[in-house]
C-alpha cells in the first residue's frame, strides 16, 4: 500500500515539476501542458539515427529514469512513506545519482552524432565539478544526525533545520543539485541554442518522452533530497507530514527552476574552476564548522 502511495506521490510531484518548468520557461501556466506534450511526443515517430551504438541508445533514457527513481526510493516523504529505508541511505543517493552521468554519457555516445557526443562528455566534466559538492555537504549532514539513515537525518532536525544549522552546506548542495539535474545555468549537456539539445538532440518520439520524464523525476529527486537533508523533511506544524514534504519539495524545485531563468549559462571551464577553487574549500570549511559546533554542543 505504502509502495503504491509513494509511487503515486512521486508521479504527481514529477507532473508538477514539469508544469513548473513549462511555466518558468514560457511564462504561461498550463496545468495540462505536460500531458499534451507527452501525448504529442508519443504520437510522433521515434527515429533511430544512422549507425548508432544501439544498446547505449536504447538503454540511456531508461537508465536516466531508473537512477532518478532509485535515488528517490531512499528519501522519506513521511514517517513510513519510504520505498527503502536503507542504513546507507545518504550514501545510496550519491550512488544512484552517479548513474545519471552514466546515462548521459551513453546518450551522448550512442546516437553517433557530434552534438550529442559533445553534450555527453561535457556532462562527464560537469560531474568532476559537482560530485564533491554533493558528497561533502551530505557528510556534514550525516555528522549531525550520526546516521546515514535518511529518516534519522530528518528527525535529527527536529530542534533546528539544517538550513539554519549549516547554511553554507545548503547553498553548496543546492548548486550541486542543480548541476546534477543539468538545470540552467548548468544545462551544459543539453545547451539549447548552442548544442541543439546536446544529449537529447538525436532522440525523438517516445524515447525523448522517456528521457524528459527521467529528467523531470531527477529534478524532483534532487529537490526532495534538499528537503530531507536541509529543510526538515516532513517536519512542520498543523499539516500532515506528507503535505509538508510535498510543499517543501515543490518550493525547492520552483526555486531551482526560477533561478536558472535569470542566470546565463556558465562555461564548462568556469564551472570546473569555481567548483574546485571555491566550492570544495567552502565545503571543507562547512564540515569543519559543523564538527566544531557538534563538539561545542556536546
Amino acid at each position, binding site marked *: 500500500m505504502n509502495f503504491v502511495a509513494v509511487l503515486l506521490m512521486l508521479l504527481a510531484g514529477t507532473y508538477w515539476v514539469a508544469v513548473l518548468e513549462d511555466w518558468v520557461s514560457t511564462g504561461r501556466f498550463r496545468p495540462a501542458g505536460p500531458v499534451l506534450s507527452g501525448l504529442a511526443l508519443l504520437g510522433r515517430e521515434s527515429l533511430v539515427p544512422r549507425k548508432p*551504438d544501439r*544498446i*547505449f541508445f536504447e538503454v540511456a533514457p531508461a537508465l536516466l529514469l531508473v537512477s532518478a527513481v532509485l535515488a528517490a526510493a531512499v528519501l522519506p516523504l513521511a514517517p513510513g512513506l519510504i520505498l527503502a529505508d*536503507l*542504513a*546507507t541511505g545518504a*550514501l*545510496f543517493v*550519491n*550512488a544512484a545519482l*552517479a*548513474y545519471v*552521468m*552514466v546515462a548521459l*554519457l*551513453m546518450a551522448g*555516445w550512442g546516437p*553517433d552524432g557530434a552534438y550529442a557526443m559533445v553534450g555527453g*562528455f561535457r556532462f*562527464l566534466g560537469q*560531474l*568532476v565539478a559537482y*560530485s564533491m559538492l554533493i558528497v561533502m555537504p551530505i557528510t556534514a549532514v550525516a555528522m549531525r544526525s550520526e*546516521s*546515514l*539513515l535518511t529518516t534519522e537525518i530528518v528527525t535529527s532536525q527536529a530542534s533546528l533545520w539544517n538550513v539554519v544549522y549549516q547554511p553554507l552546506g545548503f547553498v553548496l548542495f543546492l548548486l550541486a543539485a542543480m548541476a546534477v539535474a543539468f538545470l540552467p545555468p548548468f544545462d551544459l549537456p543539453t545547451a539549447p541554442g548552442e548544442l541543439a539539445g546536446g544529449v537529447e538532440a538525436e532522440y525523438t518520439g517516445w524515447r525523448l518522452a522517456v528521457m524528459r520524464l527521467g529528467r523531470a523525476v531527477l529534478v524532483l529527486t534532487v529537490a526532495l533530497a534538499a528537503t530531507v537533508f536541509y529543510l526538515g523533511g516532513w517536519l512542520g506544524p498543523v499539516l500532515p507530514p506528507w503535505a509538508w514534504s510535498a510543499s517543501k519539495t515543490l518550493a525547492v524545485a520552483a526555486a531551482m527552476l526560477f533561478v536558472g531563468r535569470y542566470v546565463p549559462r556558465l562555461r564548462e571551464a568556469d564551472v570546473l574552476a569555481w567548483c574546485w577553487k571555491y566550492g570544495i574549500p567552502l565545503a571543507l570549511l562547512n564540515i569543519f564548522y559543523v564538527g566544531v559546533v557538534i563538539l561545542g554542543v556536546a
Partner: protein
Amino acid sequence: MGAFGLAAAWFGVVVFRTSSMVRSALALLFSMAAIGGMFLAMEAEFLGVLQLMMMATEMAIMAIFMVMYMMDPGGLSGMDMTHQKRASLAAGALGALGALAVAVLADWGPIEARVPAATAQVRELGIEIMERSMLIFETAGVTILTAMIAATAIAIQSRRR
C-alpha cells in the same frame, strides 16, 4: 548472488569482445556494479553501495581517457586489440588457478552465523577506519594527494616558456 556473479563474469568477457572503447569501459562498469550487487546480496550493504557509487565515476572517467588515447575509439575499422595471445592465456589461466587455490585452501576461520545489522555495520566500519586502520587510510590519502599535485604540476605549462 549467483546471478550477480554470472553477470559480473559475462560483462568481464564483454570488455574484451568489443572493439568500442566506450562499450568496453561501460561493460567493465557493469561488471563491477554486478560485484556491488553481490556485496548487497551478502548483506554487506555499505560495501555494496560504495562499490556501485565509486565504479560509476571511475569507469566513466576511464572511458574518456580511452577515447582520447585510442586511434579508433569507436572500433569501427576492425582493429584487433589482442596481442601475445599465448602468454596472456597462460597468465590468465595461472591467475585463475591461483585465485581458486586461495579460495579453496585458505583458512577462512569459522563462518559467522549471523550478519550484523546494516546500521551496526556502518558504525563498526567507521570505528575501524578511525581507530585501527586510520594510519593506513591517512597514508594512502596523503600519497594520492601528493601524486595528484605532482601530476598537476607536470601538466601545467610554465608561463615563462
